[in-house]
């Protein structure tokens, strides 16, 4: 048999669900102390999530997409990027975004129905949340191409879900990034579900990582509930990209512990048992155990930190709730840099109508 090509895809896991290490830890992440700030970040996100859900339940927020269960993946991604890299999120990667300077109040504004949520005060070049699934991946490929053309030492990182890996835009991103050897990292956060559609219904492929083969990208699958595996996978992918070796598709295996969004009711389509099982593999327990065993984290520290997180989040919630609604002209502003005369007339008319109302 003559072979035209052969491929192998590596799977990375360093921290099992029980908090014990699996095999040798990667060089760069051997010091547990260095993981503590990331664990704290994960705790912060989880605190934020639960408060945001409560806000929605009490009618103070619109539909909200929680990140519950994805904390290791998101924080690991955020920790692997430089400030001047570009991040292209889907709609729930708050862990990564907070590390890049997005403010919790911006998340709330966005889900609270206010465009200003997309006006990130931190990472000014990052893409806004992308509701149209996986379109962010292709924009990130364009960003990566522009870095390459202008010889900038920057990397574009995009996230999508398991569902998102079916989207043609995802394929276009990996195909073009491969064609141009552009510095792109495509993170597929496989949480098992796309709203009600389970992973196996999305594709006949046995892994989502292997989709990268279609474009000649490097492929990697990691335990997305294992912060160390995420960090090591991202380190490799980002280094490859930065050194001109091209893009990577990295599949992070995790689980969506919450409903798809607050508008969803997952009990309609998924077994309680599966969710229960998901909770045994979630990312915090194992990391907490590992850090505690290593003596760099304790219950007391955690209590204190969570209290701090709650305070911080409450400040952000207040800021959000106290942000006045934009004036009516906001819906005309920023449509064009140089608005046409007619639009300005419509704008004036809307303002006048408000005055009368």
């Amino acid at each position, binding site marked *: 048999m003559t072979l035209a090509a052969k491929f192998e895809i590596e799977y990375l896991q360093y921290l099992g669900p029980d908090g014990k290490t699996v095999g040798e830890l990667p060089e760069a992440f051997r010091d547990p102390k260095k993981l503590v700030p990331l664990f704290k970040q994960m705790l912060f996100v989880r605190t934020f999530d639960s408060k945001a859900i409560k806000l929605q339940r009490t009618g103070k927020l619109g*539909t909200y997409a929680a990140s519950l269960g994805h904390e290791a993946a998101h924080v690991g991604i955020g920790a692997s990027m430089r400030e001047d890299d570009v991040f292209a999120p889907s709609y729930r990667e708050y862990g990564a975004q907070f590390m890049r300077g997005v403010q919790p109040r911006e998340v709330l504004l966005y889900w609270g129905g206010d465009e200003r949520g997309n006006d990130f005060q931190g990472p000014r070049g990052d893409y806004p949340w992308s*509701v149209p699934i996986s379109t962010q991946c292709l924009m990130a490929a364009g960003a990566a191409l522009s870095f390459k053309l202008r010889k900038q030492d920057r990397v574009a990182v995009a996230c999508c879900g398991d569902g998102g890996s079916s989207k043609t835009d995802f394929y276009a991103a990996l195909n073009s990034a491969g064609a141009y050897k552009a510095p792109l990292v495509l993170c597929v956060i496989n949480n098992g579900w796309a*709203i*009600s559609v389970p992973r196996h219904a999305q594709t006949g492929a046995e892994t989502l990582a292997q989709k990268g083969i279609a474009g000649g990208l490097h492929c990697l699958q990691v335990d997305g509930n294992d912060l160390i595996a995420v960090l090591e996978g991202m380190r490799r992918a980002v280094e490859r990209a930065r050194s001109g070796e091209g893009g990577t598709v990295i599949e992070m295996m995790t689980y969506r512990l919450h409903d798809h969004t607050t508008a969803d009711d997952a009990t309609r389509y998924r077994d309680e048992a599966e969710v229960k099982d998901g909770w045994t593999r979630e990312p915090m327990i194992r990391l907490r155990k590992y850090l505690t065993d290593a003596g760099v984290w304790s219950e007391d520290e955690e209590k204190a930190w969570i209290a701090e997180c709650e305070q911080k989040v409450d400040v952000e919630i207040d800021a959000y709730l106290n942000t006045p609604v934009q004036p009516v002209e906001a819906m*005309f502003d920023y449509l064009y840099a140089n608005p046409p005369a007619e639009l300005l007339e419509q704008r004036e008319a809307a303002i006048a109508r408000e005055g009368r109302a």
Partner: protein
Amino acid sequence: MSATEAKPITLIEALTQAMAYEMRNDERVVVLGEDVGVNGGVFRATAGLHAQFGSDRVIDTPLDETTIAGLTVGMASQGMRPIAEAQFDGFVYPMVDFIVSHAARMRYRTRGRLECPMVLRVPWGGGIRAPEHHSEANEAIFTNVPGLRVVMPSSPQRAYGMLLASIREPDPVIFFEPKRIYRQYKEMVPDDGEELPLDVCYVLRDGTDVTLVTWGAQVKEALEAADKLAAEGISAEVIDVATLRPLDFDTIAESVSRTGRCVIVQEAPKTAGFGAEIAARLAEESMYDLVAPVERVTGPDTHIPLFRLEMKFLPSVDRVVEAAKRAMQHG
């Protein structure tokens, strides 16, 4: 066959009822889209269908709108009658290529050898406090495309009868569903399989002074405006366009020939929206009947804002009333 139920239902329930009816009676009919299966659709339009008809008739698709459109055209051209669901209006754009380049001209380009009997259901429009890209009134993307039918029912009865007709139609139908009124009110909708025509406008209220023409969710605003106008002694006729393409202009022209005034109410941004076509027809064919300039009450020429502001984008009852009164100052 399930017994005709004797209780009033909402617009979205009427859609489910129509799909179930036709699936019972025509095994070529299948439903496909994201989350249409076990979940019954994010709006619950396909609720119960999976349990009733199984996975070979109610098909969850991979998450890709190009895929949904392409598979639908592929199935329709091989003798099936697929009903595809776009989860939200903002996600039909990746379907445009298959709709325009293939669905709308399969019959034409093969001289009738292949056809494309499909329905694309699109929850449409704003006003439900939804996230970004979930509130678009984008019917104008399709109304200049030959070979399509573009419909938008605005009552439970019309939803039922027009969806049945759309499924049975041997050519592709873009079926917009004004999601703001999915559950606005209930009506008796006998499950009798009776279809409604896909080429007529509905006169919902008779009037003599001014004709209010609209479609979709704005029918409610138009009717309320007519009430308000009546209180001020102005008699407004209200027309639900219902089928945008082919347009039953005769009904509109006949009304305007009596009232002499026309206010077109459109949720989409003003410029080059479908309301322009109605105004254009009036300018061509009803000029001598008009005693006042045509009025358009529309969304402004911007994107519908996120929900904190979206109601300020949508045409309001007050704006319709004002426009009608402006028209009354003429003639």
